[in-house]
C-alpha cells in the first residue's frame, strides 16, 4: 500500500550537479517528463473546477445556508448538507476513537515489545487488511458484522451503557456505530503503519536514557517514546481521519442511508460520500444533481484540508530530523 513516506528527499545534490543536456532528444525528454509531473497540478485544478462547475447552480440557489440546512427533500427540491456533514463527522469520529488507540498500541507492540522474528509477519498481516476493497468490507459488513452487532454487541451496549443517550433507541443493525466500526477497521492499517514509522524514528538514545534511570518497559514507552513521538502520532491520526471522511462503499452499505440527525449511535445515518454514491445517478432535477456536486465540493474541501494538515505535521517532523532532543 502507498503509505505516505515520512522522509523528505535527500536528493537535491544529484539533480543540481548533473547537466540537463542541450541536444533536442535531451530537451524533449525533459519537457515530456515535466509535462507528466505538471499533470498532478492539472489534476487538482480539474477536481476543483469540475466540482465547482457542477455545483454552481446549487451554490447560487441556496447560498451558504446549504451547509446548515438539515432538510434533504428531492420531492420539494430543497436540499441541505447538514445531515450528511453530521453523519460524516460522527462516523469518522467513532472510527478514530476505535482505530487510533488500537493502531498506536499495535505500533508500540511492534517497535518496542514484539520478538524480532514476529515483527515482519505481523506487519504483513496488517498491510493485507489495506488490500481489501471497500466493497468487500461492505459485503462482509452487511452479512457478517451487522447481524453480530445487532444481536450481541449492540444489545450488550444498550444494557450496560443505556443510561447514555448515545446508546438508546431502537436497534436496527444498520447504524452510525456500525459504519464507524467498519471505517475503523479500514483505517487501522494506515494508522498502524504510519505510527510504526514514527515510533521507529524515535532515537534509541531516548529509550536508553530512560532505561538507565531504571524505568520499566511501560515507563520507557510512556516517558521516552510516546511523549517524544506525540506530534507524529497526531499526524497519523489526522491522516486516518482524512481516509475515514471519504470512505464510501462500505459506509453506504452499513450506515442505513437516512438523512436523520439522532443522538443515538444505533440510529441510521448518511454521509457525504454515501449520499453521492446512492443518489447521483437518480438525481432527477438539475438542482438535485447540482446539490450533490456541492456535497462533493464540501467533501473534497474538507479532505484536502485534513490531508494538508496531516502532511505538514508528518513532514515538519521528518524535516526537524533526529537531532531534536527535548
Amino acid at each position, binding site marked *: *500500500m*502507498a503509505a505516505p*513516506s515520512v522522509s523528505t528527499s535527500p536528493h537535491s*545534490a*544529484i*539533480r543540481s550537479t*548533473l547537466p*540537463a*543536456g542541450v541536444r533536442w*532528444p535531451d530537451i524533449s*525528454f*525533459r519537457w515530456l*517528463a515535466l509535462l*507528466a*509531473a505538471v*499533470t*498532478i497540478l492539472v489534476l*487538482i485544478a*480539474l*477536481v476543483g473546477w469540475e466540482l465547482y*462547475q457542477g455545483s454552481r447552480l446549487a451554490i447560487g440557489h441556496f447560498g451558504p445556508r446549504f451547509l446548515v440546512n438539515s432538510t434533504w427533500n428531492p420531492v420539494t427540491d430543497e436540499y441541505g448538507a447538514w445531515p450528511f456533514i453530521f453523519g460524516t463527522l460522527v462516523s469518522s469520529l467513532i472510527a478514530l476513537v476505535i482505530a487510533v*488507540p*488500537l493502531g498506536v*498500541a*499495535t505500533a*508500540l*507492540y511492534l517497535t518496542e*515489545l514484539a520478538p524480532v522474528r514476529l515483527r515482519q509477519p*505481523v506487519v504483513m498481516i*496488517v498491510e*493485507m*487488511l489495506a*488490500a*481489501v*476493497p471497500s*466493497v*468487500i468490507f461492505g*459485503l462482509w459488513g*452487511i452479512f*457478517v458484522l451487522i447481524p453480530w452487532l445487532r444481536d450481541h454487541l449492540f444489545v450488550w451496549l444498550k444494557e450496560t451503557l443505556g443510561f447514555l443517550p448515545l446508546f438508546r433507541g431502537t436497534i436496527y443493525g444498520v447504524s452510525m456505530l456500525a459504519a464507524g466500526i467498519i471505517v475503523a477497521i479500514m483505517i487501522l492499517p494506515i494508522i498502524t503503519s504510519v505510527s510504526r514509522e514514527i515510533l521507529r524514528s524515535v532515537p534509541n538514545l531516548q529509550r536508553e536514557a530512560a532505561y538507565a534511570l531504571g524505568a*520499566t*518497559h*511501560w*515507563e520507557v514507552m510512556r516517558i521516552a517514546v510516546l511523549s517524544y513521538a506525540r506530534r507524529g502520532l497526531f499526524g497519523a491520526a489526522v491522516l486516518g481521519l*482524512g481516509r475515514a471522511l*471519504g*470512505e*464510501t*462503499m462500505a459506509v453506504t*452499505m452499513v450506515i442505513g442511508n437516512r438523512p436523520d440527525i439522532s443522538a443515538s449511535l444505533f440510529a441510521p445515518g448518511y454521509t457525504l*460520500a454515501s449520499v453521492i*454514491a446512492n443518489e*447521483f*445517478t437518480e438525481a432527477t432535477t438539475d438542482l438535485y444533481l447540482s446539490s450533490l456536486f456541492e456535497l462533493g465540493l464540501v*467533501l*473534497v474541501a474538507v*479532505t*484536502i484540508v485534513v490531508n*494538508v494538515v496531516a*502532511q505538514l505535521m508528518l513532514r515538519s517532523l521528518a524535516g526537524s530530523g533526529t537531532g531534536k532532543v527535548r
Partner: protein
Amino acid sequence: MTTPSQFQPTARRHAWRKFTSGAMAGLMLVCAVAVMAPIFLVLFFLVREGASSLDWSFFTQLPKPSGELGGGMANAIVGTFTLLAMAAAIGVPVGVMGGVYLAEYGSDRANSWIRFTADVLNGVPSIVWGMVVYGLLVVPFKTFSAYAGGVALGFMMIPLVMRTTEEVLVLVPQGYREAALALGIPRWKTITVIVVRTALKGIVTGILIAMARVAGETAPLLFTALGNNFWSHRLSEPISALPLQIFTYATSAYDDWHRQAWAGALVLMGMILSLNILVRVLSRDRSFK
C-alpha cells in the same frame, strides 16, 4: 505530584510498577491481535460463503435477470480487466515520467510542491474522481462509457505511481549516472537505459501496487462505467466491473444474488491478493531497498 514516597523505592512500589508494565504489555498484545483479527474474519467468510457459490458458469455466463437462478459474472470479470488496462495506459506513462522528473530534474522547491500535491491527491476520496470524470467525459459525450471508467481509475493511479517511481529512482546510486555521463551517453539515455533500468523492479512493484489498489475501486465507477448486464462491445458503452456487480448484488433483496456477490468478492480478493503476492516476490530481493 512529587510526594516523598516517589523517591523512596519500596518493594511494594517496585512490584506495582512491574505489574503495570506487564499489564500494559499484555494490553498491547491484545490490541495487536485485535488489529490482525479482521483480515482473518473477512477472508474466512469470503472463502466459506464464496467457494460454495463458485462454479464454472460464474466465469462463463452473463448475469441472469433477478428471480432466475444461476448465471455468472463473466462480463464483469472481463470488464475489470478492460478497465484496468485502460487505467494502466493512462497512469503508467504519466506516473513513471512524472516520477522521473521529480527524481532527475527540476528544482527542490517546485518538486516538493508537486510531491506535496501528489500526496494530497492520494487522499482525495475515490468517489470524487467519479464526479470529476462524470463532468469531464460523461456529460459532454452524453453517455456513460468504459472510457470514462478507465480514465477515472487512471487519474487515481497517476499520483500513486509517480510517488513510488520517484522513491525507487532516488535509491539508484549517483555514481551510475556519473559513470554513464562520463562515457558521453546523453542524459535521456542515461535515465532510460541506466537509471530506470536499474530501478525497474521497484517501478513495476509500484505499478502493481497501484493497480491492486484501483482494481477494487467501486465508487469512481458508479457514474462513469455505470455497469451493465451484457457484453460491452464498444468502449464507448457502459461496462461492468466486478466491484460494481458485487455492490449491486450485495445490496439487492435476492438470496441467489447475495450468493453470487460472495463468489464475486472471492474472485476479486483472489485477484488483488495475487497482485500483492507478486509484489512481495518482486520486492524480496530488490537490491535498492
